[in-house]
């Protein structure tokens, strides 16, 4: 136990650990995360899950807020096309995500930091694969640190 704690401290101080905010829909991806837990599927501990009723509930403002407050990545998880509990909430999510992705790209936020994935309630293994893959890609990119940059903005001094 003590050993693993020391290991953890070393990882967080020496290496960069991406912080990823994950918006999971209540009916599919959140259940997949639940299933991953009960089946003891191990995946990278870098996501902070926020449950929303539907991926269509994820306002683009949520995504921007997450980035602005220090997230290195944002993952949205919803039901597969055709499976939305609310008929077409996931399609609305898809349309907004596609437009928002272009804005983020223009704003200098790499595409890998923002992801929409369809993960059904039974796909715990897929959840694991998606999260691990995203963590690896963001780890390679390095921290976004927008919140630190925002802190600098009010006191900007030009030299």
């Amino acid at each position: 136990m003590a050993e693993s704690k020391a290991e953890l401290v070393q990882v967080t101080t020496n290496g960069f650990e991406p912080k990823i905010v994950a918006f999971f829909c209540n009916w599919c991806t959140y259940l997949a995360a639940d299933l991953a837990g009960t089946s003891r599927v191990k995946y990278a501990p870098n996501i902070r899950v926020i449950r929303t009723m539907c991926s269509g509930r994820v306002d683009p403002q949520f995504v921007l807020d997450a980035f602005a407050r220090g997230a290195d990545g944002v993952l949205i998880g919803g039901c597969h096309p055709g499976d939305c509990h609310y008929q077409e909430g996931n399609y609305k999510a898809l349309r907004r995500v596609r437009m928002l992705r272009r804005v983020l790209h223009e704003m200098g936020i790499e595409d890998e930091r923002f992801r929409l994935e369809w993960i059904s309630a039974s796909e715990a293994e897929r959840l694991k694969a998606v999260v691990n893959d995203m963590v690896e890609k963001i780890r390679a990119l390095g921290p976004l640190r927008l919140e630190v940059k925002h802190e600098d903005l009010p006191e900007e001094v030009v030299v």
Partner: protein
Amino acid sequence: MTDPAPIPKHEKPKVAFYWCASCGGCEETVLDLDERVLDVVAAVDIVFWPVALDFKRHDVEAMPDGSILAVFVNGAVRTSEQREMAQLLRKKAKVLVALGSCAQLGGIPGLANLSSRQGVLASAYCESPSTVNPEKLFPKTLYKENGFSVSLPELFETVRSLDQVVDVDYYLPGCPPTPKILWEAVPVLLSGILPPKGTVLAPDRALCDECPRKDTRPEKLMLKEFKRPQDVMIDEQTCLLVQGVVCLGPATRSGCEALCPQGNMPCTGCFGPTSRVRDYGAKALSSIASIIDSNDEAEIEKIVQTVPDPVGTFYRYSLPSSMLRRRKMEESVTSDE
């Protein structure tokens, strides 16, 4: 603001205007009050207004703190001089009003936040097609010759809205604000019964609500393609969104009486968000993207691409006040202390 000096009863309340990074359109709003401007002058003393009156900065500095009833500042803040003036006027004002989109949200100059200071200067002094500058001369903040020196204000990396620099009491939206909005604000500010701090002095409903084309908008509106105004013969009666033109009316605050739709052009969002929205562009994007008429990923992507410049479209007036505030540049651009 330190102890405001009490205003003697026989004196008219004092009002001041100032401009920061702006085009002068907001000053035009004041002039567009037409003969009503005489009523304003009858009711108040204008003590500072660089565009029209010959008072200087030292005149303002000599005034007691809090002695100006209302200061209207338009324009974004992007130089050290503008920041100093904003801070000075904040001290002298009882009420500081951000006039227009640039002061309220960052405005058109705020789109410079897609670039760096270096990028902005290079573009203006070297790269633009109409510029001839073979010696690559750039403005310097300090120039000395024969013991004399002249200086220019520093240009910031990041353009800011007024409230990102000083405390702002009220906002008058618009690019520029309409004379009606300004005219209706004057009695409110003079009455002494002030609305809650931070109020935007315009209606708190979406523009569609006062658009004369409102009734032509169907219950369910879906689009296969977004068009730019120059690509389509716009019908003068029908809802612009129905015609495929990106009109930001659904996400924009009303108060302008739908001037652009009445002029057969789509709303571009200069009145900014309603009070329930934190990030105007995100909400505008959301409302437009949701009406894409497809469930197929490839087709959605194709339709999304028919908006050629999403940041310029959705954040035309509000990039500095957005949650992301500026483009993330390569290291050390925004933290050059």
